[in-house]
């Protein structure tokens, strides 16, 4: 019996998906460790990009300032890059660090914290070799190991999802990772079904109010493709599609209505054949504009395209549609992708100049049944938008995000509640010395009001060298946090989290 060479050839043709990461313009021969350490001594804000001293740490019964709401019970999970320095090497992009999964277990007015670095196959192989083996998103490691597939460099470091009793640490260039919710240990890569081993899965899946999960992946190779996933509330793969997309590249987020999936595709294009890193093999091509792909939830072959001006953003808030088919959605948008090329890289060497200015502004888009489309970008610096989970895909009145408090801000410093019906804002300014992170909306039981609930999220107090977990009354965020549970240590700044009542 002969080996199936035709399959082998076909397979080999797309191995390039895995071949992209290891080549980069920036060379690790330039060591940033000393430069960062020196900058940190001068500027305590950089504490947010320092590697924790240990791979696992915990603190029980945190000191609580204020009145912690007794009705708020469950687990707040967070993820983000944390292992920036290891084996004598400091990574040169914020997105490269291996993921740190955290659980804040909340109940009876008490908060416990537990954090553990995810020992992915990538990190295990590097620890066994006692050196960094793989180039990452934006760091080149010379003489690295052979790269076989995207999951060889999976750092599981972007977000975390609890779905149908399973806890998943999310990356976006490859598989989601299964994690034990008790020990926070990495367990294995998640496959959504036969043939979906190693197929990229976004860090921003969307969950319908009924528990249906919608997700995508971007597969960049000889033929760029968008992978679509429809997953039932019980975690079963219902349907998928592969959509070829020309002039495609990194795509971080998407948004859903009750009937459609909406992809805002920026003109950030992966150009094949260049011997450079993942992000440095992208080119900003504004002449292409932004393309919006709308796919019907009930038929992945039903696709429509819209055109908008060039812009780059990481995160969406929500989308919804009117009876006539007009689709509304929002995103935090910048004029271009310089944030990811420059600011998010330079912070690793301790350079914060231009860091805050590189973040996006709140923008609202409209897609008309006629085929027209419009984009309205506000002047409000914004990122990490969140809504009530009961309104995903439905018209929401409220959006919560981090914002800038004044034009001098070097980073997002306030928590903002945006009333989309009248454009009124409620703002809480954390003040100098604190860096807030994403705050997620946790609904209060048995309430019909969209904003009846809490906002839960972390904050780094870099002046005192500690982090805390805030809880806000979402109806009055301008009053400041109801309570903050303070950790006895600082946390590295991370990305995304989720809240679940119960363990998962």
């Amino acid at each position, binding site marked *: 019996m*002969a*080996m199936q*060479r035709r399959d082998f050839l076909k397979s080999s043709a797309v191995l390039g998906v895995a071949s992209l990461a290891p080549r980069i313009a920036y060379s690790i021969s330039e060591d940033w460790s000393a430069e960062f350490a020196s900058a940190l001594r001068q500027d305590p804000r950089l504490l947010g990009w320092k590697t924790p001293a240990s791979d696992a740490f915990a603190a029980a019964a945190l000191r609580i300032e204020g009145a912690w709401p007794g009705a708020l019970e469950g687990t707040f999970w967070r993820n983000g890059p944390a292992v920036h320095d290891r084996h004598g090497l400091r990574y040169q992009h914020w997105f490269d660090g291996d993921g740190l999964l955290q659980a804040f277990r909340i109940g009876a007015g008490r908060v416990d914290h537990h954090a553990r670095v995810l020992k992915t196959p990538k990190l295990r192989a590097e620890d066994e070799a006692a050196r960094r083996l793989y180039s990452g998103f934006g760091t080149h490691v010379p003489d690295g190991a052979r790269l076989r597939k995207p999951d060889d460099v999976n750092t599981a470091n972007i977000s975390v999802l609890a779905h149908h009793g399973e806890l998943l640490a999310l990356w976006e260039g490859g598989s989601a990772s299964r994690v034990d919710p008790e020990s926070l240990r990495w367990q294995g890569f998640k496959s959504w079904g036969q043939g979906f081993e190693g197929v990229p899965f976004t860090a921003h899946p969307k969950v319908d109010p009924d528990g249906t999960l919608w997700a995508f992946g971007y*597969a960049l*190779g000889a033929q760029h493709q968008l992978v679509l996933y429809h997953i039932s509330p019980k975690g079963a793969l219902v349907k998928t599609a592969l959509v070829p997309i020309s002039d495609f590249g990194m795509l971080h987020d998407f948004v859903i209505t009750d009937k459609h999936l909406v992809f805002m595709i920026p003109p950030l294009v992966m150009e094949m054949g260049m011997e450079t890193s993942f992000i440095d093999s992208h080119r900003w091509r504004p002449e292409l504009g932004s393309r919006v792909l709308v796919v019907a939830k009930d038929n992945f072959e039903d696709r429509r395209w819209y055109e908008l001006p060039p812009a780059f953003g990481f995160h969406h808030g929500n989308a919804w549609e009117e009876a006539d088919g007009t689709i509304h959605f929002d995103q935090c948008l910048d004029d271009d992708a310089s944030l990811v090329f420059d600011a998010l890289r330079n912070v690793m060497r301790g350079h914060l100049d231009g860091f805050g200015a590189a973040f996006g502004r709140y923008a609202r888009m409209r897609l008309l049944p006629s085929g027209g489309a419009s984009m309205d970008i506000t002047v409000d610096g914004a990122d990490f938008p969140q809504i009530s989970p009961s309104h995903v895909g439905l018209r929401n009145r409220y959006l919560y995000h981090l914002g800038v408090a004044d034009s001098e801000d070097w980073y997002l410093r306030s928590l903002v509640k945006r009333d989309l019906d009248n454009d009124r804002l409620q703002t809480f300014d954390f003040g100098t010395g604190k860096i807030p992170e994403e705050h997620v909306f946790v609904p209060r039981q048995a309430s019909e009001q969209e904003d009846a609930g809490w906002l839960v999220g972390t904050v780094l107090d870099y002046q005192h060298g500690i982090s805390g977990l805030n809880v806000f009354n979402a109806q009055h965020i301008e009053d400041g946090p109801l309570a903050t549970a303070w950790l006895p240590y600082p946390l590295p700044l991370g990305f995304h989290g989720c809240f679940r009542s119960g363990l998962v």
Partner: protein
Amino acid sequence: MKTLLSILCLSTWFIAAAPTLAGDLVLEVKGVRSSEGDVYAGVHIPTPGVKFPAEEGSVHTFKTPARAGTITVVFKDVPPGEYALTAFHDEDGSGEMNVNALGIPTEGYAFGNDATGFMGAPKFEDAAVTLAEGAQSVTASGSMMY
């Protein structure tokens, strides 16, 4: 663990070969991670009009029960020339190399010299070894990647 499989005499394959010039071609498939299923391997020669590693470019393929470690196969009386090794580990015994929806292999595979390609399979010459005229033997070696 090292497994040595004694192997067929290939003189019938290379009928034109002058016996005095022929040598041994040793195939080494390293890093087989388990004894599940079978290992398939192939010997390729330069074939005009055939893109490596297409099946049409192979002069011999074989299948052997997988054994963790290194699998070694010796071909006797092979004429001088260039030979490239390909292999895959059919762990589930399906008779095929499994691939995911994107076509990326989900079972282990190996190329001679551990050759890798950019955006695809390696080139034949990167995966090949040369059995020189008068040489007693040459080893074509590659490690499984999972």
